[in-house]
């Protein structure tokens, strides 16, 4: 039996979600249409609203409904430090940690040579413009400590070196409260390689 075209369109539209194949997409479509029409209506409106109203903050590149996001618009924050993160979720976690009162830049991705994601596929050009706008004195690179995050950090440091801004990278090592006996060996070894001096 052939489905009506609008049902087929809905099923194939749901397949764009990561991890959703034809079977799951069909199940979702039937659920939305049969069991939860109000939910389907809400989903359609929310998606439509997000698509038309959400843009990227013109300074930090995170998702925002206004030209400046609420972090960038907050004049009480330090204007001379810029923390570079990969994704908005990283920004949210850093905000929760309450350790930083400067501004952010969200790359919306990372350089990943093995997946063919190069420097031109993330917002590096926008970052360079922002970092060199005259107000920023320190750029803190807070990309992930994965191989891709480290590659991204290297690309950023190459682009910003000798440009008159101080470049720093967040530290890695044992987790707070970590016990040497139980920590994973990769982390422990790297903590020894990157040990810091205590003598003055």
């Amino acid at each position: 039996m052939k489905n009506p075209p609008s049902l087929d369109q809905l099923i194939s539209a749901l397949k764009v979600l990561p991890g959703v194949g034809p079977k799951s997409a069909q199940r979702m479509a039937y659920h939305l249409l049969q069991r939860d029409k109000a939910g389907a209506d809400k989903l359609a409106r929310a998606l439509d609203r997000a698509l038309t109203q959400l843009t990227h903050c013109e300074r930090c590149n995170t998702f925002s409904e206004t030209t400046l996001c609420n972090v960038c618009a907050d004049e009480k924050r330090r204007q001379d430090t810029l923390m570079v993160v990969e994704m908005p979720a990283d920004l949210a976690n850093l905000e929760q940690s309450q350790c930083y009162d400067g501004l952010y830049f969200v790359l919306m991705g990372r350089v990943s040579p093995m997946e063919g994601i190069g420097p031109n596929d993330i917002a590096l050009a926008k970052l360079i413009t922002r970092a060199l706008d005259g107000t920023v004195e320190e750029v803190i690179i807070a990309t992930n400590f994965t191989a891709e995050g480290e590659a991204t950090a290297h690309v950023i440091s190459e682009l910003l070196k000798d440009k008159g801004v101080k470049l720093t990278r967040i530290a890695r090592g044992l987790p707070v409260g970590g016990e040497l006996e139980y920590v994973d060996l990769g982390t422990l070894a790297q903590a020894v390689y990157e040990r810091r001096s205590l003598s003055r």
Partner: protein
Amino acid sequence: MSQPGKIDRQPGYVLMSQPWRETSLLIEVLTRDHGRLTLIARSARRPQSTLRGVLMPFAPLELAWFGKTELRTLHAADWQGGVPQLSGLTLLSGFYLNELVVKLTARDDPHPALYFAYDRAVRALGAGEELSTVLRRFELALLASLGYTPTFDRDVDGRAIDAEQGYACPSDGLPELLNGRTVVAESEIVPGAVLLALAADDFSEPLTRRCARRLTRLWLNKQLFDCRLATRELLQTINGLSD
């Protein structure tokens, strides 16, 4: 009861990984006796997973897995250590090694010699050895594992290489004495002294390293069928941007 296709304590490296379902990882690994294969690392992305700090590229591991299909399941990954995490330019060079391995080797095609060359290259990168020597040695070992072992000590007519002469090295075949002959297309002109240095695995002269780079690029491009290398382009972009 033993599981089907169970392999224990196999030395290997993670070449690349990607998220799989909610909490798992799909990893591409290069192993000593089983070649390159894909493994599912179940629950490796959970916050408490101890595999997170272990399943990193460029870290020597001992892997155990089971399964008979093309997609096998990781059972254990033991960290072996000895290589500090790569960073900066050495990290990008490491990605270059990985991209070559992924693009030029077949899955489930064991090549212990290639594994040893890879292992040696990663350890050399970690130890901060001269970058281009490490890369050229690995490229030559990779070409040898593909069945293309370059000859550096004899020319196409079977004569010993003369250090004083110039030679044309084609993309396939032996070096050809120049001696006023016209050069065939797709070849690199290399002094005989450089060929002899390469035959002796001696990369100490900058000229040797430069010629070796042109030669391996010519040969690798032929093996890659001119497929683009993302890592090579990345390095070129960085060099172009910082100028």
